[in-house]
Structure formats: structure tokens, C-alpha cells
């Protein structure tokens, strides 16, 4: 029971509930189910990306290229939509997923086969992918009127009371939760990050597991790329600029240890929701949106402090203090 109360998911849920209650004390409309559903919908892209990032961080890596992958995939499907407006949306989504996966595989291969530190690889691919968007689009924007109506309508299409964007996020959450807790691949992600040396002796290929983590992160970023451009009905070089930091922030707030091996899908989702509630609450309580950056920065620092308190290893005793002579 005590352990349950101390778990990150419970503390975060309580913090989010407190936050919502505090806001609704002054602005009761904020707690209306329709508004909360709206906040969830608005946070969906962040949740999907945070789950991908969580898997990468679990394996002791980091993926700074997610936002660039999202933007590149978004641009490709938008251009594709101009070239072939009648392409079925299922095919578009498949292309977004696979292109994202391929871009993730590039990261994964560089980390696995060439053993280059993940932060260097994804820093490099981040700038390269952004540059490629400029090359394929000539720096032009794809605007709303150039996209086909069906292409734009999909994330807003309401199914059982919720927009499809929310359903996509829910599907990713459920699938990820099952994969991470019920499959060998999911457990391998934890094992590889928790103790790489022991994983090798148990027959796990550390590099290959990291490769799959990057592939999944890329595929989810690709999916989000389509959802993003269709929701905002615009694609250009800088969409989701700097979003990779929000994604990492969501993971850190969600209790995912940057040292690898510790974290859960629930944590990543709650971390994203925490940031989402703050972002949506600021305009409501009449605080300038310019405060958002400083607030999320403070939230990250507090979260890291809490994480380290929870996961701190006990110090080691080299020499026992000698007994005082009698």
C-alpha cells in the first residue's frame, strides 16, 4: 500500500488533479468534461511522442530527432497529398508510419553498427532531416487550400464522442502498455537499459534492441507527423520546432530515468498530460503564454530532483569506522 502511494504514477495523477481543481476553483468551466476531453485531444501528439521517447530512454539512449522526423514526414505526406489527392488515407498513414520508421532506423543503425553515441547521432540527423524538408519543399509552405478535404478532416472526425486524434493516442497507449509489459521485446528494452552487461550474458543483443527502440520512436513520430499537418492544416520547414525538448520533458516529469531501465507508459502519458494541462490552463487563468517556457523548465527541474530522491543508490562503505579503543 505504502509502495503504491509512493509510485510516480499516483503522485503525478494527484498533482494533475490538484492542478485541475485549483484552476476550476476560479474558472469552473475548465473542469467541464468537454474541456478536459479537449485538453486530452490537444496533448495527444505529445503523448504519442513521449511513449516513443520513453522506449528510447529506457535503453540508455536519447532521440533528439523526433520533432524533425515528425516535420519531415508531415511534409512528405502533404506533398504526396498534393500530387495524389485521391490516395486512400490508410495508405497515407501507412506511408507516414513507414517513413518515420525508416528515419528512426537510420538513427538506430548508426548507434548499433557504428557505436556512435545516440546524442551525437540524433543531434546530427535532427539538423539533416530539417534541411531535407527545405530541399524537398523548396522552403515553400503547404497551405490548407492545397490539401484535400479528407486529408484534413481525419484527425477531427468524431467517433464515439471523441476526435480520431484522441483515439490514435489511446490506441498507441494501449498497444504500448501491452508491448512493454507482456512481450519479450518490451522486457528487453527494460533489461538492456537496466543492466547492459547482464543483458549480454542473458543473450540479448543490446545494439539491436536499441535499434528497435529508435525504429519505434521514429514510426510514432511519423504517425504524429501526418496527424500534426492534417490537424493544423499547414506544413512548413519549422513545424514542431523545439518540440523534442517538450517530449523529453514529458518523459522526465513522468519519472523515466535518463540513466535507463526505469519508467512506464503510464508515467510518460501522465508527464505529457501534466504539461498539456499547464499549457491549456495558462490562457484560461489569464497568464501570458510567455510564462509557459519558464514553468515547464521549473517543472522539469523539480521532477529530476524528485526522481533522484526516489532512485538514489545507497552510498558504499569502503572502510568501516573503527571501534573506539576501550
Amino acid at each position: 500500500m505504502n509502495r503504491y502511494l509512493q509510485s510516480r504514477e499516483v503522485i503525478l495523477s494527484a498533482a494533475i488533479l490538484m492542478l485541475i481543481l485549483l484552476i476550476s476553483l476560479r474558472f469552473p468551466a475548465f473542469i467541464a468534461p468537454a474541456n478536459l476531453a479537449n485538453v486530452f485531444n490537444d496533448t495527444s501528439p505529445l503523448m504519442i511522442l513521449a511513449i516513443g521517447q520513453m522506449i528510447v530512454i529506457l535503453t540508455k539512449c536519447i532521440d533528439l530527432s523526433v520533432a524533425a522526423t515528425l516535420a519531415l514526414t508531415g511534409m512528405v505526406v502533404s506533398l504526396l497529398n498534393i500530387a495524389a489527392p485521391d490516395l486512400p488515407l490508410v495508405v497515407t498513414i501507412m506511408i507516414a508510419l513507414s517513413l518515420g520508421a525508416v528515419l528512426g532506423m537510420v538513427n538506430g543503425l548508426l548507434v548499433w553498427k557504428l557505436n556512435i553515441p545516440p546524442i551525437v547521432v540524433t543531434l546530427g540527423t535532427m539538423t539533416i532531416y530539417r534541411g531535407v524538408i527545405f530541399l524537398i519543399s523548396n522552403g515553400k509552405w503547404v497551405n490548407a487550400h492545397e490539401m484535400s478535404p479528407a486529408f484534413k478532416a481525419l484527425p477531427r472526425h468524431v467517433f464515439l464522442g471523441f476526435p480520431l486524434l484522441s483515439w490514435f493516442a489511446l490506441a498507441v497507449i494501449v498497444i504500448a502498455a501491452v508491448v512493454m509489459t507482456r512481450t519479450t521485446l518490451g522486457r528487453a528494452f527494460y533489461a538492456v537499459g537496466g543492466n547492459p552487461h547482464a543483458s549480454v550474458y542473458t543473450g540479448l543483443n543490446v545494439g539491436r534492441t536499441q535499434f528497435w527502440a529508435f525504429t519505434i520512436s521514429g514510426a510514432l513520430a511519423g504517425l504524429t507527423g501526418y496527424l500534426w499537418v492534417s490537424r493544423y492544416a499547414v506544413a512548413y520547414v519549422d513545424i514542431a520546432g523545439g518540440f523534442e525538448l517538450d517530449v523529453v520533458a514529458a518523459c522526465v516529469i513522468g519519472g523515466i530515468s535518463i540513466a535507463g531501465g526505469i519508467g512506464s507508459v503510464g508515467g510518460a502519458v501522465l508527464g505529457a498530460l501534466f504539461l498539456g494541462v499547464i499549457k491549456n490552463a495558462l490562457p484560461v487563468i489569464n497568464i501570458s503564454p510567455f510564462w509557459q517556457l519558464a514553468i515547464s523548465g521549473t517543472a522539469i527541474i523539480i521532477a529530476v530532483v524528485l526522481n533522484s530522491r526516489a532512485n538514489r543508490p545507497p552510498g558504499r562503505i569502503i572502510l568501516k569506522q573503527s571501534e573506539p579503543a576501550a
Partner: protein
Amino acid sequence: MSPTDRFIPDRLQSPLTRRVKSWETLLLAVAVAIFTFNAFASPYFLNAWNLSDATFNFTEKAMIAFAMALLIIAGEIDLSVASIVALASTAMGAAAQIGASPAVLVVIGLTVGLICGAFNGLLVTVMGLPSIVVTIGTMSLFRGISYIVLGDTAYGGYPAGFKFFGQGYVWWVISFELVAFAVLALAFGVLLHLTNFGRAVYAIGNNPVASLFSGLRVGRVKFILFLLTGLMAGVASVCLTSRLGSTRPSIGFGMELEVVTMVVLGGVNILGGSGTIPGVVIAAFIMGLVTFGLGLLNVPGIVMSIVIGALLIGVIALPRLWAMWRG
């Protein structure tokens, strides 16, 4: 011969061979190649004033990169440097509005840098937190404060004497920034390669636990390195603000990535333990030359970033691919 056989050579490589085969020599060759290519590609390249202008592409970033190199060699990283630049610039802008003199502005810029560096250092060394996450947090926090202060407005109206730091020339085409860059390169080179402190930085990066048990004050060395990085971000902020003559909260956005790229390109191991200041100096010139040369050829900035990104991965990947191919 079975693959498990290992040999110990009768003679170690002579110092000359080692120097010829070093990373710095490779970088220097790349720099010379780019310089030669640029000279042939554009008739405007070999012009003293153009080349002098080109140095502004890297001097400010390189100042931060020197301190960042030491920090990365010691096994830590500071991703908040660009935000420190923004916060220091905002503080200087606010002071300029109430008529502070250039000297006061410089003191304010450097002090804000030191305070930010101390804040990062305290969180990492006293609280024992991972620097990559802490500085992602302070990166949002520091720039966030600039946004709270400035919103969508900007500070201008810096005193005339303040222009010197970013726009002044010491002699002929030699700008103040270039002199500062050279002096700081020398200072950091001496600090890292010729002092006990520098040896401690390498030792800590290679094995922090062993360093602690050998009596090195690991926490204090790391704290000083964060202070130095903050201070250098403050120096860069003074130069950049003086050069632009105005402060927006987005000033220097994304600079941290270019600084880290410069350090890694310079042969510093991102995992800590090895790297040199001469390497970083040459890497700074390479990045400046690439940006400037492509600019003369009318290549847009975003395409240059592809080249920089490819350089970053390429310089690390190629030697490893070569080693794999050689078996």
C-alpha cells in the same frame, strides 16, 4: 594467426607519426581543403574584409565551445548555454534602458552568466543530478525568464561605447571578437593542457570514482567547469548583443547544438575523457569556413545545416567504417 593473438609492438609509434595520424591533423587537412575549395569556387572569398567578416560566424560560439569542451571532457554537458546568452542579454538590455554605462553592462552580462552557471553546477554537483536533464530544464527556465520579461517586445538603445565588443576592430581587419577568441583559446589551452586542473578534468572524465578515491575534489572541479561555461556564455552574450544592437528573447536560439557540434567535431569524446583545445579551434574554423563559403555560393542557411549535421556524423562514422572495412 588466430584473431585472439595480440601483439605488443617492439617500438611505439614515434611522436611524429602519432602527430601526423592524429585527429587534429585530419581536421586541419579538412580545413585546408575547404579553404582551397572556397577560394576556387568564389572570387569573393580571398578578400581580407570578407574573411574577417566570416570569423563572426564562429567566434561567439567558439568562446562557449572552449569551456564546453572542458565540461564534456569531464563527463558532463551544458545544454542551457544558448538560454544563458538570452538571459544575460535580457539583463543587459534592461540595464541599458535605465542608462547603464558599457562597463556596467559588461559586468551585468558576465555576472548573470556566472549565476546561471552556478545554478547548473549546484544542481549537478550538490544534488547529484544528471547534467543532461538538469540543463534541458534550465534551458527552458532561463529562456523562459527572458520571455516573461520581454514577451514579444525587444530591447534596443544600447550606449554607443557598447558597440565596440561586437563591431569594433583592434587593428585593420582584426576585430575585437577575433582577439578575444584567440586570447580565450590560449587561456583554455593552457588551463586544460598545462595545469593540474586540466589533468584533473581528464582524470574525472575517464573515471570519476577512481578520481574521487585518488583525492580529487570531483564535485568542486565540475562546479568550477559549470561556472566557467556560464561565464563564457556571458562573454558570448556581451559580444552577440553588442553586434546585433538589440535583444529579443529568441536571441541565440539553437546555439547550444552548434556549440556541441563544434566540440564533438573537434575530436572531444562526447562520453568524456579525451579531447584537445587545438582540435576545437580547428573545428571552429571549419564550421566558420563551411558556413561562409556556402553563403558566398548563395546556399540557404538551412542547407548549410545539412552539411554541418553530416559533418558531425561523418567525422565520427568514417574512421569507424574504415576500421570495420580494414577488419
